[in-house]
């Protein structure tokens, strides 16, 4: 191979590599991202069975039910609509009724959302950003 | 003074730093490719070292040497052009003068906008040890707290601090302090009553069983204690035992001196219940006032209290306009206007009530009877 051919081969190899990486990235972006919904948004949403989403809203007052074992049930509301959530795990310290929360998981067959992670905030005055914005859009929450 | 002096010194130091190169004799200029040559020489030495320890092979070392040599040659070529531009010292001096000036101007200017030079440091320890005469309320309290943290068995200290907490709205702290005072110095009507009040305040105005027990202990020490009686009655009314509540308040209205704030409060509660101050008549039910209202009423002058009552009356009036099928409400409204001495409005309320309840209905008849009992006649 001449010098020029070698150079071309190296550049082509680099491009193929970058192309493959870019392809993989975009494939992953299509497959592995999870959408964020508030309960009222779910009517309009088209969800595949078992599709992972992030569900955000406020923990409905009086909805927390602790079972016999380690499972906890509660409801997430955006004041317009409410979704029941099941979760087996340790709830965050700042998980409280009436507070903002983001649950990640998917819907089970019975219409209950099964969360595998529940996120509240480290900071007692702070609302998860997505929830705060969602509530603002719905006009139910005004930051002071 | 010390601050301004130090600030001036800092500014001077900063300005001197900018001026520094102009205060010294110019350093011998060692510019240009000399540095690069040094680097390359150093690289050559490194190649030698690596070659001697066998880290790189002989051929590899030879190639590296040749390459560094080429770089040195290239450097020598480039140097021929030279970079000896005459420097304009005048512009330099001008620029550095501007910079030297900019430091104090910017510094002091921005500080004038941002800083609070008049505000001294307020270290907590210093604040807690200075003369009590100069201390604020908060500081005195903090100081007492510090003292009590170190001497938790000082009942007297808790006794002094507890009512202050209560007034500051630090209700949970007040509860603890009253409990400590009682534990260490024994029960008194003051302490038990205070504990009860703190418990009520901490529970947003609800008289809990704990609070009730405290008030009862206060009355065991001093059966005439006004605060304990008032709150016990409030507790009864919250439980729906309006007759008991009214009895207690009526007693208070009767036996307390006229200038006691508790007497006014008791009478007001009676008015709220719709119970006359004399015994023997039925009392109508009404929601308990919130803690804020009680507190407010207790601390008010009589004028303010009147204003507040009028406010509550007009609220009631407004509510009845929206929601007129409420015999109880109409009775209270008529009675309230009558108590306030506004006869015309009392009669007006009666007329509206009768119309709202349905002229000729049984309820309208009861309202009319109730009103005539108060001396309000239908027009």
């Amino acid at each position, binding site marked *: 191979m001449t010098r020029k051919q070698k150079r071309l081969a190296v550049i082509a190899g*680099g491009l193929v*590599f970058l192309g493959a990486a870019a392809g*993989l*990235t975009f494939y*992953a*972006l299509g*497959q*592995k*991202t*999870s959408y964020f919904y508030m309960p009222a948004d779910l009517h309009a949403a088209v969800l595949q069975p078992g599709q992972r989403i992030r569900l955000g809203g406020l923990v409905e007052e009086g909805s927390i039910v602790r079972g*016999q074992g*380690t499972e906890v049930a509660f409801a997430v509301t955006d004041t317009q609509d409410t979704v029941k959530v099941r979760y087996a795990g*340790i*709830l965050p*310290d700042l998980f409280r009724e009436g507070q903002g929360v983001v649950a*990640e998981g998917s819907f089970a067959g019975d219409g209950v959302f099964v969360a595998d992670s529940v*996120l509240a905030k*480290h*900071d007692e005055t702070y609302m998860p950003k997505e929830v705060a*914005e*969602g509530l603002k859009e719905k006009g139910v929450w005004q930051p002071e | 003074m010390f601050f301004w002096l130090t*600030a001036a010194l*800092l500014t001077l*130091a*900063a300005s001197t730093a900018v001026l520094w*190169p102009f205060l010294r004799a110019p*350093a011998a200029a060692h510019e240009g490719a000399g*540095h690069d040559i*040094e*680097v390359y020489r*150093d690289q050559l*030495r490194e190649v030698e070292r*690596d070659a001697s*320890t*066998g880290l790189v*092979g002989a051929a590899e070392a030879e190639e*590296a040497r040749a390459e560094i040599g080429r*770089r040195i040659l290239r450097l020598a070529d480039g140097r021929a052009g030279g970079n000896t531009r005459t*420097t*304009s*010292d005048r*512009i330099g001096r001008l620029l*550095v003068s501007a*910079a030297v000036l*900019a*430091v104090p101007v*910017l510094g002091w200017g921005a*500080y004038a906008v*941002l*800083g*609070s030079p008049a*505000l001294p*440091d*307020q*270290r907590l320890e210093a604040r807690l040890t200075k003369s009590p005469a100069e201390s*604020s309320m*908060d*500081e005195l*309290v*903090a100081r007492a707290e510090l003292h009590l943290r170190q001497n938790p068995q000082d009942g007297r200290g808790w006794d002094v601090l507890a009512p202050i907490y209560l007034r500051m709205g630090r209700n949970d702290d007040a509860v603890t302090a009253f409990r400590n005072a009682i534990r260490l110095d024994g029960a008194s009507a003051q302490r038990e009553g205070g504990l009860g009040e703190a418990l009520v305040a901490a529970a947003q105005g609800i008289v809990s069983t704990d609070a009730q027990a405290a008030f009862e202990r206060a009355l065991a020490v001093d059966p005439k204690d006004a605060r304990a009686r008032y709150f016990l009655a409030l507790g009864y009314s919250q439980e729906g035992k309006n007759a008991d509540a009214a009895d207690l308040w009526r007693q208070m209205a009767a036996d307390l001196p006229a200038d006691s704030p508790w007497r006014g409060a008791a009478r007001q509660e009676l008015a709220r219940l719709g119970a006359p101050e004399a015994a023997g008549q039925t009392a109508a039910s009404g929601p308990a006032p919130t803690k804020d209202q009680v507190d407010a009423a207790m601390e008010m002058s009589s004028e303010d209290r009147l204003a507040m009552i009028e406010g509550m009356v007009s609220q009631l009036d407004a509510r009845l306009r929206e929601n007129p099928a409420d015999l109880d409400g109409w009775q209270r409204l008529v009675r309230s206007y009558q108590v306030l001495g506004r006869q015309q409005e009392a009669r007006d309320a009666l007329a509206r009530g009768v119309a709202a309840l349905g002229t000729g209905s049984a309820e309208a008849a009861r309202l009319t009877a109730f009103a005539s009992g108060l001396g309000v006649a239908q027009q």
Partner: protein
Amino acid sequence: MTVELGHFALVLALALSLVQAAVPLVGARMEHPRLMAVAEPAALTAFALVALAFAALTAAHVTSDFSVVNVWENSHSLKPMLYKFTGVWGSHEGSMLLWVLILTLFGALVAVGGRNLPQRLRATVLAVQGMIGVAFTLFILTTSNPFARLDPAPIEGRDLNPVLQDIGLAVHPPLLYLGYVGFSISFAFAIAALIDGRIDAAWARWVRPWTLLAWVFLTGGIAMGSYWAYYELGWGGFWFWDPVENASFMPWLAGTALLHSAIVMEKRAALKIWTVLLAILTFSLSLLGTFLVRSGVLTSVHAFATDPTRGVFILAILTFFIGGALVLFALRAPSLAAGGLFQPVSREGALVLNNLFLSTAAATVLVGTLYPLVVEAVGGDRISVGAPFFNLTFVPLMVPLLLIVPFGPLLAWKRGDLYAVAQRLLAAFGGAIAVTLLALVFIDRSAAFAALGFGLAAWLVFGALTDLALKSGLPGVPLATAARRLAGLPRSVYGTALAHAGLGLTVLGIVSVTALEAERFVTMKPGDTAEVGGYTLRFEGLQPRQGPNFVEDRATFVVAGRGGEALGTVMAAKRMYTTRQMPTTESGIRTFGLGQLYVSLGDLTEGGGIVVRAWWKPLVTLIWGGALVMMAGGALSLADRRLRVGAPAPRRKAARQEAAA
């Protein structure tokens, strides 16, 4: 008066940074030595002033001066002294002051240590540093002033966020910032090279140790942050692919690439333009990280209350520096002398491959981190990109990179012999295969991926050992000679081997925890036992306990080993910080060997039990231990005489050194 003096010093530092940014730059254009010489005293004084400001703020925190808003918001008279001290940078304002303190510290170090640099280069570098200083000092003074006062002063503070009341706060942010800000030096050198239109030979000599220094700190900062989140969040995870974590990881990836490309540049005078670009990108990613963390534009498990107006300011800083640098690069890069071509199979070829993988990996992390922002801006959908994305993109990029790591140090410069190198690595390869098979047979027959992971980790460690063995002459020389030569090897050789082996250890820890961790999730009443990973936990009950500024219920678990032998206790707690009325969970961790038993408490249940989540995490400590080994490798390289900061010593000194040698 200390508080106001601190405030004044900070304002003065701003003025001085402004001078430092402008005067030497003009001086360098005019070839005016005295104007250029303003840079050093200005940088030193700016550092002294910022240090004074920082000391004043520290004094205010330590003495609980609640007339300072920052102290009132983040401190409490009863807070333990250590947290009063670390609380200085526990708040946004204080942490930005720490940022600027470190920035000016590096500026001062260049001023002191750079006397041998060409004056023009030194003046321009310090001017660029000054510009960054101006931007961030201005940011502090206008949007987040730690010296704002309160009058009258409250008597008690609102306490520091309990999550931050931890030794982790003492270690993690300073290390992280030393890393982030350390890259500003490489950035400043890159900008200086672009402004001058030439790259001095001294350039590469300087950029490499500074990059290495920043890299060592950043490695430590990320590792400590990961360990802190691991034990503080109580989830048992060590990495969540959270935006805030990615924000620190991207500069690390780019910085690692820079580290390697700087070697090529120094040794072969090649890859110059790429190295300049990488230096710009690395610091840009540091700035982006600061922006992401401070603005709260992305949802993060590590984020605290944030303020969008600050975000806009940092975004402006970001745009100015990144945009400016890239424009300058576009204009000037063509005028820089390009380096020579080289053979693909060579040390430099391997390093280019390393750069290709690392920068692509950094790019995928960047895409994954920013994609939610883009989607929201374009379509309004709120999405999140989490671990599944990164596992699918990042891991496939890393595996081949890790596979080629052992080849790099063994290849010769200019013309490598891949076949010969492969032969030399045969032993290491055999060892890795053996480890894979052992893992497959003895640990889990079905977990082929885990076994391959163990093999990969072993490959890295054995590869590093092979490198050392070959460089000391084995197998060709007698053992005694080899030992002597091993001892005489340059420290940078050890540094490389240690860093690569440390990477292997981290991989080993990650694979082990991912594949072999055991988890139990149960409700326990006092006296109940639960078994996890061969250890038995007996719950003894909850005891209330009073801390300085919190109350806690502490759960005690008695641990017994496989054979029932007593192994002591592990304690976990649920705390309530009284001032903020904020609950936290303190996980209980016991280290056995290289693994850890991890217990986290949940809620109380009705029957008087408590929800307990317990893990056995085999080899988990290697994740951070490996990072420490990497740091040690970096530090050892820094200590190498050949890398010792800066251009060569003046001739006289050099001669003396040679005489001594």
